[in-house]
């Protein structure tokens, strides 16, 4: 293993991604970002807070997806499976056993990592790659959806409601409806998750993961245990996605099969990362910041439409259609996403 490192250093003495100063700078940006966004609820109108929270949930999911698919090169089309496991774990443990969501969030993350490793192991063991891997993950997410719809203990299609408490409680993560805590908690979770991915991407295991993504055969010939590092990446990715699911349940106080395992969840997990830039730390965050508020902006536009858009008043679908056009345009014309493209311009 050490051989890999020395040869790498011999070839590229100042490889930017591996350097410790790179990671330090990323942590610094993260701290600054956290400090700035901490104060956002004070300036944001009250009606915009749910949008901000939803954007943060998107961002956590996208960071998770990005680890597996952007850095790991295992294109997942079924992250709803991992999101849903986190979401249902919180709901189930709380309603059945009264366990605090803080604890069940961790339980859900571990469970989801286990599920993810199992699925990924099966797919990788049978050498599924590219579209086949994507189709297999998609199939598993659909299976989970069907199971949740039919499972008595998960209330079938009705889903699980989280009982509303009469007073605020930190332990049960319930506050006044407009409490800023509902914003600060996912912000903190996002910061932790981003810090973890910065650490992981710059770590030895993360470097191996990227080497495997770029050329699995070459990596294997250098003595890297391809399966092990891929599964570690998957586990981390799934755990992060499950945290987004867990918080989703706790914020909306409800989870149902479609909300947890629906195809749109898998799509919501990948779109911010793709739009922002796959395989970069900040890409998913940029993507979420663009896509999250988008439907709200469009809805606002339609409430007071300019004359040429008047015919669209009261019509649904426009927000997702704009979403779709953005997705197509960025994939076709900016293969590296918004952040990736800007960064490349900057470096030149």
């Amino acid at each position, binding site marked *: 293993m050490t051989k890999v490192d020395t040869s790498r250093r011999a070839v590229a003495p100042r490889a930017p991604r591996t350097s410790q100063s790179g990671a330090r700078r990323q942590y610094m940006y993260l701290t600054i970002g956290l400090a700035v966004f901490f104060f956002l609820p004070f300036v944001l109108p009250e009606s915009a807070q749910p949008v901000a929270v939803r954007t943060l949930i998107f961002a956590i999911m996208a960071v998770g997806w990005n680890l597996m698919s952007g850095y790991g090169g295992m294109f997942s089309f079924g992250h709803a499976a991992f999101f849903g496991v986190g979401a249902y774990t919180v709901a189930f443990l709380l309603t059945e056993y009264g366990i605090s969501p803080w604890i069940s969030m961790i339980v859900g993350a571990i469970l989801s990592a286990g599920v993810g490793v199992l699925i990924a192991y099966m797919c990788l063991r049978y050498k599924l790659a590219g579209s086949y891997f994507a189709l297999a993950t998609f199939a598993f997410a659909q299976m989970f959806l069907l199971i949740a719809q*039919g499972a008595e203990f998960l209330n079938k299609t009705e889903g699980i409601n989280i009982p509303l408490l009469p007073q605020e409680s930190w332990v049960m993560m319930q506050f006044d409806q407009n409490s800023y805590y509902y914003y600060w908690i996912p912000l903190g979770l996002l910061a932790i998750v981003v810090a973890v991915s910065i650490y992981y991407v710059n770590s030895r295991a993360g470097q191996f993961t990227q080497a495997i993504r770029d050329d699995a055969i070459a990596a294997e010939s250098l003595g890297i245990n391809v399966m092990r590092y891929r599964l570690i990446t998957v586990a981390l990715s799934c755990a992060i996605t499950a945290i987004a699911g867990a918080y989703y349940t706790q914020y909306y106080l409800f989870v149902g099969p479609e909300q947890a395992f629906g195809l749109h969840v898998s799509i919501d997990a990948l779109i911010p990362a793709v739009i922002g830039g796959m395989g970069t730390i900040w890409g998913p965050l940029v993507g979420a910041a663009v896509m999250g508020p988008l439907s709200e902006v469009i809805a606002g536009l339609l409430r007071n439409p300019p004359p040429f858009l008047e015919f669209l008043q009261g019509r649904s679908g426009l927000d997702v259609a704009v979403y779709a056009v953005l997705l*197509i345009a960025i994939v076709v014309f900016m293969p590296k996403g918004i952040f990736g493209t800007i960064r490349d311009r900057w470096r030149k």
Partner: protein
Amino acid sequence: MTPSTSNVLIHDTETEEPTRRAFVLSPAWKVSLGVTALAIAALALIYLVGDRADSLVTQAIVTGLLLGGVYALASLGLTLIFGVLGIVNFAQGAMLSMSMFIVYFMVSTFGMNTYLAVIVTVPIMFGFGWLFQSTLMNRLSGDSGHERPLLVTLGLSLLIINTLLMIFGGRPLSVDAPIEGSLRILGAIADYPRMIAFGGAVIVAAALALILKKSPLGLAIRAVSENNEGASLVGINVRRIYALTFGLGSAAVAVAGGLLTPFTSLIPSVGDQYTTLAFVIVVLGGLGSIPGAVIGGLFIGLLQTVGSLYLPGSGSLLLVFVVFVLILFLRPQGLLGAKK
């Protein structure tokens, strides 16, 4: 895509000498005959030892086969596009919805006969597919990754469904079938619109196979699917062939959507369920194989209806996914796909 999957379209025409072909079965056909025999044996077993009434089983089989024909029809475009372009077209279901709504529009606005509207829809969808491939997707070719085409078709799917939602709204709409009524087969009921759709599947599959094997365009398509660099060296405009193939695939989708319209309640997301099932069917039959799509469709249709005799709720659909994953793991080239 793996190279082996992309040359499925041509594998059984050139492997054997013409004189020997009548006697030697290609491995793909052996597999499919085996599967058919297995399915018949399984059905016989259900008749003999299953604890369900014979009439129920017969009805399930008839319904399953008719449903399977519809599934096959919905999957033909997907398998063609995959076989030649190597693209997993995620917009398959949305394009199905789109053609259904075009039919609806023409029937409701011009009072056109439903099946006439289907015929008009075909060139429209051909043009749409051709335009999509030549303006957008061709920009991605030469790219080794599989993700970008998948993402663009995903975007197209969202775009189509939500545009339909904007234009037609979310309320279910319906189109009357010009031919009503049903036929009784061995005590089971089969209604005419579904039988017409089944017939459409057979005709479209035969037409696609004929185009691929006999026409100059088909020759060019096969050449491109075999080796696109070699094809361009001998003077084939690969991008043009890609666009025409996507157009052909979309035309097949148009027939499917059109023939589904009379017995489907139209909402913009109606095609979504077929996207999933078409993936299952096409993987089962071998990505890129036209007979595979037909056999896969029939198999999945039977699995779903006969399975629902014994499994509660959506259990039979779950069974379909289990089969899908097993096929992906154990025989990713599909039943009729060429072996690596």
